[in-house]
């Protein structure tokens, strides 16, 4: 089922929680709404579920306009952040709830529940009450309850945020596995960019109620279109640059930042000044001075085993985060050491704003 949003807006008092958001979500897509708290992602999801009527705009499920369809008729399966399991019902009764409403026959009900319970690995827990389950198990019940009704669309509101870090990774893989197996259109809300990258086909980054960037995870990672997108999706250094010259044929520009000249491969920026996004993992430590090399001093060194994180103060005064993966013991630079940083012209991104 395709989901199309056209110019959705929703305000609470003066706060514009969602502001003119238009999106298209393909059939079978795992689509993530990503953004910091208060960006409007949950509001947008609740508009899709029908819990909030939008102030403006249209929601389509396939070709059908669903603005006036009440939430209980939208046939979506929703997994809530706190799972929202019915405390007075057992695991099995929780899962059966939606099927009972749909007046599914006994034999079919047993078959579907059984299959679902196997699929989410809850065998043997059918008679337990939610309060007798661990967080991960509750999460599975919530997922099973939403999926067993074979909804057209699966909606998930930060489903993993109440689990511990290890379980979170395991569960997100499981969610992705089940989603692929069923081929169900899924709209997933999270504030965790790593989680979003791990599970999504497409990601929409929201900021202050507006759609910031839409694309595949790798597109957004490699080509963030704004400072917000660059900083939110993975860490990033943002450097202000002064454009010196532009070479049309090679589509390279020469620019200057903090007294150092740089070459960047990019389309021509709009103005004289522009912002450059440099991922910490793209910065190399150089031995020799030369082209596209910035001199600086190590301010802090954090050794994390598989990588070393440096905070470097560039000659021009700018602070730059650097990550060196697979470090060798003898190459680790201590605080106060002079370093040279090399930027790869191919991997720098000019930001839109």
């Amino acid at each position, binding site marked *: 089922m395709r989901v199309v949003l056209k110019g959705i807006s929703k305000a609470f008092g003066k706060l514009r929680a969602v502001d003119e958001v238009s999106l298209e979500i393909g059939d079978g897509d795992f689509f993530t709404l990503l953004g910091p708290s208060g960006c409007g992602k949950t509001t947008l999801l609740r508009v899709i579920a*029908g819990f909030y009527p939008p102030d403006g705009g249209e929601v389509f499920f396939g070709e059908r306009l669903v603005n006036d369809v*009440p939430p209980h008729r939208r046939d979506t399966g929703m997994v809530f952040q706190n799972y929202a399991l019915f405390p*007075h019902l057992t695991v099995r009764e929780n899962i059966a709830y939606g099927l009972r409403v*749909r007046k599914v026959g006994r034999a079919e009900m047993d078959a579907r529940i059984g299959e679902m319970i196997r699929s989410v690995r809850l065998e043997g827990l059918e008679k337990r009450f939610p309060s007798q389950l661990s967080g991960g198990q509750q999460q599975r019940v*919530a997922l099973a309850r939403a999926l067993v009704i074979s909804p057209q669309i699966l909606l998930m509101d930060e489903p993993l945020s109440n689990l511990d870090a290890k379980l979170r990774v395991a569960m997100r893989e499981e969610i992705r596995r089940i989603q692929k197996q069923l081929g169900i259109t899924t709209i997933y809300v999270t504030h965790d960019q790593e989680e979003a990258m791990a599970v999504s086909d497409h990601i929409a980054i929201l900021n202050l109620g507006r759609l910031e960037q839409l694309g595949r995870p790798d597109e957004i990672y490699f080509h963030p279109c704004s400072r917000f997108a660059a900083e939110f999706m993975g860490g990033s250094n943002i450097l202000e640059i002064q454009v010196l010259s532009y070479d049309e044929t090679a589509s390279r520009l020469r620019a200057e930042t903090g007294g150092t000249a740089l070459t960047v491969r990019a389309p021509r920026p709009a103005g004289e000044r522009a912002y450059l996004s440099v991922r910490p993992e793209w910065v190399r430590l150089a031995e020799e001075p030369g082209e596209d090399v910035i001199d600086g001093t190590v301010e802090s060194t954090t050794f994390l085993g598989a990588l070393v994180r440096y905070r470097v103060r560039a000659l021009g005064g700018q602070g730059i985060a650097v990550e060196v993966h697979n470090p060798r013991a003898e190459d680790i630079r201590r605080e106060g050491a002079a370093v040279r940083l090399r930027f790869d012209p191919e991997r720098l991104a000019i930001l839109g704003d």
Partner: protein
Amino acid sequence: MPRIVNAWNGVFVLAFAIIVLAVVYPMFIIFRASFLSPETGAWSLESYRAIFHYPFYRRCLKNSLFVSVVSTVLSVVIGVPFAFFLSRYEMPGKNVIKTLATLPLILPTFIGAEAWLLLAGRNGLFFNLFQKAGIELPSIYGWKGIVLVFTLQFFPYVFLMVSAAINSIDRSLEEAATNLGAGRLKVFLTVTIPMVTPAVLAGALIVFYLSIENFGVPILIGEDFRVLSVQAYNEFISEMGGNPSMAGALSTVLLVVTMGLTILQKYWVERKSYAMSAVQRPEVVRAKPVATLLMWLFCAGIVFAALFPFAVVMVSSVTKTSGPVMYYGEFSLENFVKAFTITPRPIVNSFFLATVSTLVGIVFGLLVSYLLVRRRGKMSYLLDALVMLPLAIAGTVQGIALAATYNTGFIVLTGTWMILALAYFIRKVPFSIKTTSSLLEQIDRSVEEASINLGVPPFRSFLKVVVPTMLPGIVAGAIIMWVTTLAELSSTIVLYYGPWATMTVEIFQRMGSGEFGPASAYATILIVSVLIPLFFLQRYLGRDLTTTL
């Protein structure tokens, strides 16, 4: 979802209509009456002038304040050490003492007054015993008796609030003070006491409020010592036709006091709480044997003094009597036989009225709680304030207001059972709303949404998912409503009419005419009817009545 919104809007309108008709409009009626001259019916301040001019009325106000202040101080003096001893020290029979100490909260105060009359009134058990020994006991009548009954019945509020506060102080706070060099006394004075002070004030405020609003105790035991609530009643029910203006003015004065106390409670005390969540309680200490004995004697003695009178009432009910003369030691079931065969009507009335108003209260309470918790907005705040209003109105005042409003005009309810049911419902429904809405707040909204999302329409989702989850709380709220309704005297006495006398009225009247035996029989039925549901509440729902009051 326009259709759904409308259904709840309808509930909103209905709830407002009920509150306006049962509370706001009647209060307006007596408020207006207080500004009308009793003789001419023109606008005048005559009644208020009379209150502040004639020493008699001034004394009523002074008396009310006096007994309330003295009872409050005594309740604090008893309740605070009571709470400290039981929370911090080992003591034999501790849990029994704690449980018994909460009983006076639910036992009707006027039965407490009745009990003390049986004990120490003219012709009372002790009175006669001591007289034989040649000792003249101080009179129980007047302010001393009122203060005695108030203190013994209301000190548990101070005890409970202070206990809760003591138990919510994390031990690390006292340990931190010790670590910083403070001695035990210093810790107690600089950490423990300041942390507990808001609870002491909150408890004191409740005691003061209940004392000044009480009607049954002063009218039974006060004799010539008149207080506001009694005088307002007298003015209204006067044999010479009554004086609605004066009754209204006295009610208004009482209303100003009770409202003021409620506002003080809400905006001052409720904000000053240091309750911490997830605390590690301080250790319970075993004191030296002598100290333990002294503390035990204090706590057990207080509980005994508070409950013994009720036992006397129960014993009196199976004692042979002839008018005010009790033949203690001579067993007889005559009082009960008479109560059940000759005049069973008050018993039936009480149960009927309590049940009807409770059932209506459950439904109304549930719907209103839902509006208050789930549909927050300006309207729901207003509704919240309005439904809680009866908590700030003395029962007598509420009774007078309803009687004055519905004895003429387009709706005439005076003289029917419905006005009693209405008064009970409106006075007790705040308890039901409090329990259900605090429960509802704990149920995340998404549980309902999950049900809606799975295809069940909103109102049915509420019934299928929310109501079952809340059931234990609803039952608890209903029991509290039922039990307190059964024991209601102050508004009943104003509103009842011949055949609709309740057990409380019966007890009150029989005491007045000196028929102690039958009065005790009805009182015993009442006590038992109150205690059985509470036992059930504690045993099967694992709830304290204290969490609900």
